[in-house]
């Protein structure tokens, strides 16, 4: 054997021995801590995964123990299956994914316990009160789609992402860097299925297409007609999958002198219309395009007979605090394209606030909505709460899971047992996705934060999550397909207008031209 070969072999053996020694030193301790001092309180852990209900198919809820110690030990156990024990010198607890999945799968409907031990420098162990969560029988959809953006009016680094909830994989659905930093806004899915997806784009260069992805094919829809000249804001699928309700909003941003939320949004005009996929036609009626009202946030009832939406009086910007939305509905028959009478489902006066973002549970029994002090756009409100209504009785109540910050952009899972929403409860300004279990009676359980591999992930994240939507399978469309759709928008045929359905349809009131943002140009104003 040559000299250098011998040297190589020696190095390999040494490396193997060293690896074995390291593995031994850092092996997962499986010994049970028999002697400890009990601490009569639960440990402080972050994120707060305590006393909550979790789905049996969620990724490990990694957390950080906020107790100072030299060593940490966490034992996760339930009635069935082997417990998981993690020892660490650092307070970050990374739960191994496979044992976690097994433990959850074996204990559906049962409590899940977390014992947290800490060891001080003298070697004494302390055991805190056991944290107990409940593993529900109800699974959550496997994927969550959300938009991640910076707190900015500039469209920089904005994208729609999908996250596998069984692990930590996140992938891009569409990022605005692929089309010259335009805006990607408000995606929606039909029945929590990824095979029918909508998202809107606003690009100074490529226009304002509504991107529709159906059965792995993308089309860029041009919904601009003389009745619907504005940019599409919020969309909703009709349960038959052939009709899309959309709002055309003309927003203006304004600012607050001393509020927690610096920015606010005022709607200068807002109307609703329907897009008929098969005939490439846009349909509307005077009831949902009233010049004296702002109609927004469309949502079809699950039987497809009613279009629900929010409606507020059209007021000058100075009276922005008086803008409060009522919850309305109008009968619509997709076969005959006939509209019925307009009805007020719930008035703003009744809830003492502005009702926005109505979302039906898959069985149509529950209607989840948002109530804020004012506004047609609750995202920038310092506080907005989640309310739930039983559609049969019309009874509504504020969900106790609402926080003293903004909770918005909510939606149901495909089985109706989970809701997801964007909440600013953790940081005041940065919205994060939370899940809450809803049982048969409509009771909502303590929400928990979307878990991340690094439990401190959100602590320094300067982006916000909005429009979280649960879907059962991953979006089959590649980002490139969506980008190609945007680039091809110029060739997209304009939608036709249906006038026969609602004779005498008045045109949408001309949108008041937005004043240029001259808040920083007093001299121009003066002149």
């Amino acid at each position, binding site marked *: 054997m040559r000299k250098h070969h011998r040297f190589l072999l020696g190095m390999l053996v040494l490396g193997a021995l060293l690896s074995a020694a390291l593995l031994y030193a850092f092996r997962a301790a499986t010994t049970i801590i028999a002697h400890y001092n009990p601490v009569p309180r639960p440990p402080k852990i972050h994120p707060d995964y305590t006393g909550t209900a979790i789905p049996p198919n969620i990724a490990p809820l990694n957390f950080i123990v906020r107790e100072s110690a030299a060593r940490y030990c966490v034992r996760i156990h339930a009635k069935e299956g082997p417990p998981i024990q993690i020892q660490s010198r650092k307070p970050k607890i990374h739960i191994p994914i496979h044992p976690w999945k097994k433990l959850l799968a074996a204990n559906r409907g049962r409590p899940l316990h977390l014992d947290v031990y800490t060891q001080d420098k003298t070697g004494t162990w302390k055991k805190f009160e056991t944290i107990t969560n409940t593993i529900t029988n109800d699974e959550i959809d496997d994927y969550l789609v959300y938009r991640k953006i910076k707190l900015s009016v500039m469209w920089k680094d904005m994208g729609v992402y999908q996250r596998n909830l069984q692990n930590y994989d996140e992938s891009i659905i569409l990022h605005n860097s692929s089309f010259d930093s335009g805006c990607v806004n408000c995606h929606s899915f039909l029945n929590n299925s990824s095979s029918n997806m909508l998202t809107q784009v606003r690009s100074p260069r490529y226009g304002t297409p509504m991107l529709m992805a159906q059965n792995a094919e993308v089309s860029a829809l041009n919904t601009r007609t003389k009745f619907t000249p504005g940019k599409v804001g919020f969309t909703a699928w009709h349960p038959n999958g052939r009709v899309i309700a959309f709002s055309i909003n003309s927003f203006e941003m304004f*600012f*607050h002198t001393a509020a927690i939320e*610096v920015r606010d949004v005022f709607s200068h005009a807002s109307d609703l219309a329907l897009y008929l996929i098969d005939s490439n036609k846009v349909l509307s009626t005077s009831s949902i395009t009233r010049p004296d009202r702002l109609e927004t946030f469309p949502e079809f009832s699950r039987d497809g007979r009613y279009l629900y939406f929010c409606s507020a009086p059209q007021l000058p910007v100075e009276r922005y605090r008086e803008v409060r939305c009522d919850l309305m509905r109008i009968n619509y028959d997709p076969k005959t394209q006939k509209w019925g009478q307009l009805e007020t489902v719930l008035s703003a006066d009744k809830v003492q606030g502005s009702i926005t973002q109505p979302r039906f549970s898959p069985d149509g029994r529950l209607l989840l909505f948002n109530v804020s002090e004012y506004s047609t756009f609750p995202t920038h409100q310092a506080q907005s709460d989640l309310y739930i209504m039983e559609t049969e009785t019309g009874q509504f109540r504020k969900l106790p899971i609402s926080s003293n910050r903004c909770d918005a952009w909510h939606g149901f899972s495909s089985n109706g047992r989970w809701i997801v929403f964007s909440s600013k409860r953790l940081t005041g300004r940065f919205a994060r996705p939370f899940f809450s279990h809803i049982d048969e009676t409509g009771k909502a359980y303590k929400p928990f934060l979307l878990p991340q591999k690094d439990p401190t992930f959100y602590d320094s994240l300067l982006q916000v999550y909005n429009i979280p939507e649960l879907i059962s399978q991953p979006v089959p469309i590649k980002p490139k397909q969506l980008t190609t759709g945007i680039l091809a928008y110029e060739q997209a045929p304009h939608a036709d207008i249906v006038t026969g359905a609602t004779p005498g349809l008045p045109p949408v009131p001309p949108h008041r031209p937005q*004043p240029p943002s001259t808040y920083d140009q007093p001299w121009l104003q003066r002149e």
Partner: protein
Amino acid sequence: MLNSFRTLLTQNPDRRLRSLLFFILFYLYIWLEVDTRLIYHGAGAISDFPVFFRGWTFFHRFTSYPGGILEYLCALLSQFLYIGWAGALVLTLQAWLLSLCTDYLFKAVNLPRLRCLRFVPPVLLLITYTRYTYHFATTTALLISLLSVCLYLTATQKAKLSRLIVFLVLSVFVYTIAGGAYLLFALVCAIYELLFARRCWFALVYLLSAIVIPYAGGVLVFDVSIIDAFTNLLPVSWKIFEYENYKKILIIVSALYLFAPSVLLVSGLCRSFFITHAQPLNQPNAPKARPHKPTKKKRGSKFSRLRSRILSWYSGAPIIKWSVESCLLFVLVGAVIFFSRDIKKKALFETDFYAARRMWPQVLAAAPKHPNSYYIVHAVNRALYHTGRMPYDLFRFYQSPDTLFLTAAEHRESYFKKFDIFLDLGHVNMAEHELTESLATDGRRPLILKRLALANIAKRTIHTARVHLSALGKTLFDADWATDYLQQLRSDPTFTLPADHEIQRLRRYMPVQDYGFSPMPFEHILLDLLKKNARNRMAFEYLMSSYLLTGELGKLIQNLHRLDDFDYTQIPPLYEQALLLYMHKEKKPVDLHGRQISQLSRQRFENFKKVYAFYGGNKEAAFQSLANAHGDTFFFYSTYGLSGLKK
């Protein structure tokens, strides 16, 4: 290759010495004259300066596209620009390696006469720095490509390895690390094989690989767009092109990229076409070139004899030769730098840098280099206020109503320049708005994160402040600052922080009455601030200055009573001048709240009128005389709309 580089370093001590001297001067110039701290600061003009955060999460996103790893390393190295000497060291090291690679390349292809061109890449680099642009990642990608070319040449010359295998391995490495800069590697290797080694098939394969490898690696493996697959980290990448400021300097960066391949191509073609018996390199069996037969020396004229005598003396005196060549080099480089540097841009960066650090005398010292820039005047006005000179020296500098708050339409998105004025004034919400926009456009810079944290602590939105502090805690140089604040917030459950003067000042001044606004004139903002705290001196002086600049003397007089809220011993001269002019025009007295207009102001006004009258009231004719004597007064500004003209 290490040996080859070692040889390069050890051979020719005169060459080494010249290089050493060149790079010492390069280093000193970058450190002391360019000042890398200015590039790090960015002044709102370098929007693509990378941030760097410790931790896996930050690293992870760089692994998803070709060239990402290099971008990550460059982000790390770029942070050293924060410290002048360390930043200069990083940039000099990069320039030196580029020079070394160029030298090695020309040596390897047997172009010894061109080795003096090794200084061209460092000079081109220096031009980009003297013009205050940031192309570190792009130029480092170039360096990786050239280093790989050198590695390829060394490996294929000495080792008995298959050229194709070496090329393929290096291709995968270069593409993964340096992204689109791989095209340069493939191109240079192809030129070498075609024109110097005379292996056409290899050249063809390499050129084909320039298409195949980015497509296979970028589009199929990394799943990036075809444009990104081919252009990431190249000067033509959209990521660089989107910055309007960079379009001019991209010619220099492109020249840097094209320098080596162009020289090789031209010299290779010359060799192919003009030297009939040129032999391919690295072919051991190739017959040796026929030795030159000594030819009879022709007897030349007196002049040519003299010239050859001088030349032979010159060749025989290595010290003189070295000195002359070195002087020539340094003069040439000096001339290039002299004519390419951008003094105005430097002044812009300096004033912004010093203003951000509240180094007011330095702001005022740097400003005259580019006195008409709105950005600079904006910084100067802050400096004037903070040095107590605003109501005295406002018109010593060029002024316009737009300079106080950068209100011109073209400055609407200059968020980076605006947030400090609102923090100074105590309008925390406006500052927060500008800061968050700046965070989106200029990146998560520590300077912005610090201010956002302070604004949120002042507002008692502590959870939000903690997010900014946690992000700041992952930076290299400001982590301690963030940790200190996080600790303070933990130990003070009421978040009062009584010992923190900045927080207390902000809380004293920030408006408490909330209302929505858009648009809102700055006059209202300033009055609002004075309503909250009548002793907000900055709001007062800015309000009065804005009235002076817009000529709203009636409003100035209405607010004159506010002087009583402060410790002015007398009416500041610029306000006196405004009062005198107002009284002169309106022919009515003004309530001075028990104060007097000074004799000096009255004399200046009389003198101004006298000079004006001397020219028969002809504005144009009186301009120069008035500018010389009264160019720093409100009288002059009011008459001509100009200021800062007094010699």
